[in-house]
């Protein structure tokens, strides 16, 4: 049986006016690193709060380690680790005090499960007497992860753990998650960063409370329906406006310093020539491999149509 099983979960706010989660189903296997990928407001936090028994769903069912999220909420609470999106430790307590408080609350000690957090804790240990509120963003995340892990949870819920953290710390963080996964802990992680999607084993792309696709990142990329090209010229703003008016261009969006496009007849050379005729200089284009973000945009477009 899967560790987390979600079936048609629905959550609305303000008496049904705002639909945050709109009939979502997915399953996470034991020991899997599963990612919920979607922009802000997609419903990721609501899903996490329902699975950690903090919110009651309007309808639908879900189990965590085989326990029902509504009826067995007390049981679930001692088996899962949860790290909310907002830093939620006691800012006026030191690093060590926070950790030992959460250890005692879960009826355990730091020593008992030190092996689980050792690799992470060792990095913040030099600051163990510093108040949590005075730590840097990356160190706060590490401490929060330690606190969520100290009772050896079987499922770990991480809500946007890398938001507001610098690139180096983000990379370190994902390496830590891989190490934890190796210990057999099931991990659910949510992120708005598409580039982090490939670091998960399987991902669910979420938009406006609905799942667009669930698969491995590789399969999702494979399912991209068209050939993708990136083009650029000396005037990127005029370029995107021109591309939008051309009938052979089926989709176009700006992606960093390039524009990503799909073509009806996949005739890139013809397009580039046409652009040069329209007065663009330094026109350049090449076929590229789609990323998860390209897939997300394509899926979102399909869903809207």
């Amino acid at each position, binding site marked *: 049986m899967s560790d987390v099983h979600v079936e048609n979960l629905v959550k609305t706010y303000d008496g049904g006016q705002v639909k945050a989660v709109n009939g979502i189903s997915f399953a996470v296997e034991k020991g899997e690193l599963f990612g919920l990928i979607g922009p802000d407001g997609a419903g990721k936090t609501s899903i996490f709060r329902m699975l950690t028994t*903090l*919110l009651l769903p309007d309808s639908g069912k879900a189990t965590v380690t085989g326990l029902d999220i509504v009826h067995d909420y007390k049981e679930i*609470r001692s088996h899962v680790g949860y790290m909310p999106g907002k830093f*939620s*430790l006691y800012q006026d307590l030191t690093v060590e005090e926070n950790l030992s*408080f*959460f250890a*005692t609350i879960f009826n355990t000690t730091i020593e008992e499960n030190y092996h689980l957090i050792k690799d992470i804790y060792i990095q913040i240990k030099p600051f163990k007497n510093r108040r949590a509120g005075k730590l840097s963003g990356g160190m706060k995340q590490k401490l929060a992860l330690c606190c969520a892990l100290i009772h050896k949870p079987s499922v770990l819920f991480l809500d946007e753990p890398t938001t507001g953290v610098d690139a180096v710390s983000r990379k370190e963080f994902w390496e830590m998650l891989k190490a934890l996964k190796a210990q057999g802990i099931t991990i659910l992680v949510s992120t708005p960063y598409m580039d982090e999607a490939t670091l998960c084993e399987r991902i669910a792309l979420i938009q406006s409370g609905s799942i667009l696709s669930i698969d491995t990142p590789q399969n999702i990329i494979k399912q991209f329906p068209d050939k993708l090209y990136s083009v650029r010229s000396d005037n990127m703003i005029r370029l995107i406006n021109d591309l939008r008016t051309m009938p052979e261009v089926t989709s176009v969006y700006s992606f960093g310093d390039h524009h990503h496009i799909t073509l009806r007849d996949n005739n890139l050379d013809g397009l580039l020539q046409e652009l040069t005729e329209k007065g663009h200089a330094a026109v350049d284009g090449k076929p590229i491999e789609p990323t998860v973000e390209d897939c997300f945009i394509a899926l979102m477009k399909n869903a809207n149509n």
Partner: protein
Amino acid sequence: MKQFLSFVRKEFYHVFRDKKTLLLLFGMPIAQILLFGFALTNEIKNSNIVICDYAKDVASQELTAKIEASNYFEIEKSLPNHRQIEKAFQSGKIKLAIIFPTNFGNDLWHGGKAQVQIIADASDPNTATTLTSYATQIIRDYEMSIRKTNAHNLQISAITRMIYNPELKGTTNFVPGVMALVLMLICVLMTSASIVREKENGTMEILLVSPFSPLLAVTAKAVPYFILSLVNLTVILLLSVFLLDMPIKGSILLLFFESSILILTALSLGLLISNSTNSQQAAMLISLMGLLLPVMIFTGFMFPLENMPRPLQLFSNLVPSKWYYIIVKNVMIKGLGLRSVWKETLILMGMATFLLILSIKKFKTRLS
């Protein structure tokens, strides 16, 4: 148990690392005790009194009728013996006793000079002085009226005695009042912020996703404030004994016991507010606005409750500090024991239990 102790320790950290809260916790009582040097005076109507009439002659009965007819006094009953006066005072129902000696009428008509004794409960000195002056005024009026009909130069001298607080120290009145006010406000204010703060900071979110029980959290939050409030109480008592020369006549142990019950009541009320609100600001506002005025007005140390309209008097029964004020006056000033305040003690205990159970029940095990 280990969980509980760890929780309590955490709460202590919160209190001691928040310097502003600490200042409020200890600064406010000291400031208030020193500021409330004066209590307010007010006209007092329909005070219950007892009459002990040994004379039972025309003059004493005429005077009694005059006293009864005034707006100021209600005669609770007539006592056959002055020894029962003390007991009547201790019941707390009467404010004043008037005693006519055996030969009151005889002395007046034949000797031209008679005495009447007025005894007042001066544990509330303002009321006591006001009431004795009312009584002497009525006696003076009567004296004038009989002088008109009689040629003799008749004289009635009223001998006033203040019991419990012969020097009429104002402090005796305001110390119990400030104790009630400060303990009530501080305890409610502090705890009302404590649970809602965890909601605001998001720590409640991870706290809920753990095997701890609401009972544990709520009681653990009350412990540090309970201990600090007892320290506070000690400071207030030390200040009043050594700075304001205010004696503690009754048992100190009993005083602390009764104070503990009031503190528990207030802490439970604070926790209830904290559980029912969603921001620290709202919690503070409710506990300040919702409590300051009722506690000031209905405790009875600023404005006599006897003088209020009936509905307000009934309402005052809901204010815990009212009962505590009665208890402290009896224990501290009159030196009475638990036997005289058991009723008020039970009421306070009932309030504490009710509020504590309600605040635990109100604790939300989920976010919304």
